[in-house]
């Protein structure tokens, strides 16, 4: 029988308020195997851990049960404490009497009774614990960054500066991402390209960084330290080595009708194109759906005019398989579709645009060469209206329930830039609350109001209706003056909600990274581990984890890089010792378990076995504990119970069930 010590934590008042900790200690003293029980206000504190150390020494404890908060919080803390006391760290079990008991029950008697039962289950489990040694697995000193926007670039540069190889996989023909589509950035009003392109060049020139553009991740297998990734390099139909980036092919290409995604479809581009001038790599891509050569077999102008002979119609997709130690997701975002918001007439009038479209209109390389004009008739607008929170903060299922965080700042930026460049244009912003927290942000917003006379109206817009005279009737409310406002505007800009890049769900499934219903990747802990995914070895950088602006994205990109570097710096990783273990004498060799193992950790061996005197060679399952992640699928398909899971063995779970149902 084990010698078990039970430590009941008050967690200040979090537990002690609704669970009678003294009674739990008293009840635990009577449990079989428990030879020491005590309570302490803060078990996770240094003093609390000392209690464990002293008790282990004094009572020669062989097992420890801590009744406290969730094991996801402090299991590691208490295991380290036990280790310091010379006890095997896997002889520690946690009874979650906070999140699963004291916080959700009001009646003291009921909560205490439940706490005792949960503690009893933990004691029953620790009674059957066996000391385990964490194994080791190797670390491939190479990182993969999925997504080539500012988040991906910054993460890649930081990892590469630490001396590790980094591959960036970018879906579009050039890195740069959403930021490359912006004109100016807040709060400093720097030109977006001016601060982004140097980073892009730095990434491209960095000898440790290898960039795959116009490529996607096809398959991911393996786990932390040992990922194997298939990258699909889609056929550009242009040979990157030969191409000099002269751009002649783009001028001469006769097919000019396809929508220019980079300019949000506001103008068109040729079939062979680079997304924008400063594209890196500056190698065009042939859009095979628009290219006359691919559709009809005729044409071939680009091949003729290309002195470098770089055009290669026969180029096929290429699958590159690489091994990585860490993977950083930096897939970025897009604005939501506005089809369910017909009250803003976005689909009816060309003069109702989203803020991202306004960025392109104001950008010198944009569809209007930087002139602010109406897309319907090209005239300069006199009255401009900005509408905030379009699709954000909506708990009806049309839009997104969260606040997209960046719209208040970029709308203030737009308003300020327009008032500065075109002083005669009146700008009105309909808002619910202006949210500009942080350094120099509110001052930035106040400058827009005070210096540039932007007219902020507290109240949403109910309807935008195109008028026969080509203007737009904006019907809004002014809650402070309690007036309904009917304004004729020349242009209406919608501060549209943002959502993660659609393809992130496929990537999350491949990485087994958890993802929430809004398609944002779930972080390991919202406060304490914001840049890591619960899946070890996967890190989150940028808006794929939640709405954020460029300063935060760059900060988080750096953080994700440091986490990845922390992982790559290790030569060995301690692996989870709770892996499957077959019992040689009972194994039928029927390979049911191998069929369900997601990691291919089970192999078979004809082995000489002495089964109580019968000596024969048998087909025995072998588990590679470096590959096994301890899911337990094999233990259930094994009819005879030969395959068992260390740390969560059949008898342990049965003991917990018994303790609970007693």
């Amino acid at each position, binding site marked *: 029988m084990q010698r078990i010590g039970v430590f009941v934590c008050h967690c200040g008042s979090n537990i002690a308020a609704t669970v009678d900790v003294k009674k739990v200690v008293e009840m635990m003293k009577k449990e079989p195997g428990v030879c020491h029980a005590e309570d302490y206000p803060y078990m996770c504190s240094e003093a609390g851990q000392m209690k464990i150390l002293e008790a282990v020494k004094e009572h020669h404890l062989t097992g420890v049960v801590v009744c406290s908060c969730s094991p996801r919080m402090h299991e590691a803390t208490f295991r380290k404490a036990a280790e310091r006391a010379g006890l095997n760290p896997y002889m520690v079990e946690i009874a979650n009497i906070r999140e699963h008991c004291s916080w959700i029950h009001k009646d003291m008697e009921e909560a205490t009774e439940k706490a005792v039962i949960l503690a009893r289950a933990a004691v029953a489990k620790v009674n059957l614990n066996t000391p385990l040694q964490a194994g080791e697995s190797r670390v491939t000193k190479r990182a993969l960054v999925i997504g080539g926007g500012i988040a991906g670039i910054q993460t890649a540069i930081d990892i590469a500066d630490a001396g590790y190889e980094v591959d960036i996989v970018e879906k579009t023909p050039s890195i740069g991402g959403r930021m490359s589509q912006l004109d100016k950035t807040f709060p400093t009003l720097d030109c977006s390209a001016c601060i982004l392109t140097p980073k892009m060049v730095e990434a491209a020139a960095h000898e440790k960084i290898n960039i795959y553009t116009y490529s996607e991740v096809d398959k991911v297998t393996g786990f932390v330290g040992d990922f194997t990734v298939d990258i699909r390099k889609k056929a550009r139909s242009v040979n990157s080595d030969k191409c000099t980036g002269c751009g002649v092919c783009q001028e001469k290409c006769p097919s000019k009708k396809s929508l220019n995604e980079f300019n949000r479809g506001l103008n068109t581009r040729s079939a062979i194109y680079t997304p924008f001038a400063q594209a890196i790599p500056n190698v065009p891509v042939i859009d095979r759906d628009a290219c006359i050569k691919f559709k009809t077999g005729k044409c071939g102008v680009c091949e003729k005019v290309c002195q470098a002979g770089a055009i290669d119609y026969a180029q096929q997709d290429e699958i590159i398989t690489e091994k990585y130690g860490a993977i950083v997701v930096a897939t970025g975002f897009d604005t939501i579709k506005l089809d369910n918001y017909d*009250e803003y007439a976005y689909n009816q009038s060309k003069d109702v645009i989203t803020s991202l479209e306004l960025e392109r209109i104001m950008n010198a390389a944009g569809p209007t060469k930087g002139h602010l004009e109406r897309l319907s008739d090209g005239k300069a607008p006199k009255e401009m209206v900005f509408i905030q929170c379009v699709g954000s903060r909506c708990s009806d299922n049309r*839009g997104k329930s969260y606040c997209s965080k960046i719209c208040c700042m970029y709308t203030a930026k737009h308003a300020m830039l327009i008032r500065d460049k075109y002083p005669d244009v009146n700008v009105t912003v309909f808002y*619910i609350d202006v949210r500009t927290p942080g350094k120099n942000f509110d001052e930035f917003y106040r400058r827009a109001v005070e210096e540039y006379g932007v007219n902020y109206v507290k109240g949403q817009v109910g309807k935008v209706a195109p008028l026969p005279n080509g203007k737009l009737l904006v*019907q809004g*409310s002014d809650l402070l003056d309690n007036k*309904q406002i009917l304004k004729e505007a020349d242009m209406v800009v919608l501060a549209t909600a943002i959502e993660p890049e659609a393809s992130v769900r496929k990537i999350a499934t491949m990485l087994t990274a958890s993802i929430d219903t809004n398609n944002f990747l779930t972080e390991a802990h919202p406060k304490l581990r914001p840049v890591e995914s619960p899946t070890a070895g996967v890190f989150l950088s940028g808006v794929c984890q939640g709405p954020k602006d460029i300063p935060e994205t760059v900060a988080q990109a750096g953080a994700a890089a440091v986490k990845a570097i922390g992982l790559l710096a290790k030569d060995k990783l301690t692996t989870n010792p709770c892996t499957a273990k077959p019992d040689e004498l009972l194994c039928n060799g029927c390979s049911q378990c191998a069929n369900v193992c997601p990691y291919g950790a089970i192999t078979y061996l004809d082995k000489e076995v002495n089964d109580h005197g019968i000596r024969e060679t048998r087909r025995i399952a072998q588990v590679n504990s470096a590959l096994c992640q301890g899911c337990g699928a094999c233990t259930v398909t094994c009819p005879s119970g030969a395959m068992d899971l260390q740390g969560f063995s059949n008898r342990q779970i049965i003991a917990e069930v018994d303790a609970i149902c007693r």
Partner: protein
Amino acid sequence: MSHRNYAEKIKEISGVNPYKCMKCGKCSATCPSYSEMDIKPHQFVSYVQSGEIEALAASKSLWKCLSCFACVERCPRDVKPGKLIDAARQLVVRERGGDYLSADEIPALLDEELPQQLLVSAFRRYKR
């Protein structure tokens, strides 16, 4: 009408939780008869939330609301102000003793083509 139970009753009839309102003003922005109303649609919600049912019941807005439900359709938080005003109107209509249509007012409102049936139903509804 004491505050508490009538506010509760309105919430119960309309099934609306006024606390979900984020004061964005979109309902007032959308309301076609906004200018006719003394208490505006976004104020229905705050009046019910603070329990000021007398002011709401006595207000002209009860009868100006066309029940076009544009506010219900466009409210981003599913607060349905139109349903709230409907519930308030139900309470007033059910209120005994309230007399909203006196016989001597009829000649002023009368119009030749007015069908007899309309007068009867108006009296039945608004005259207690």
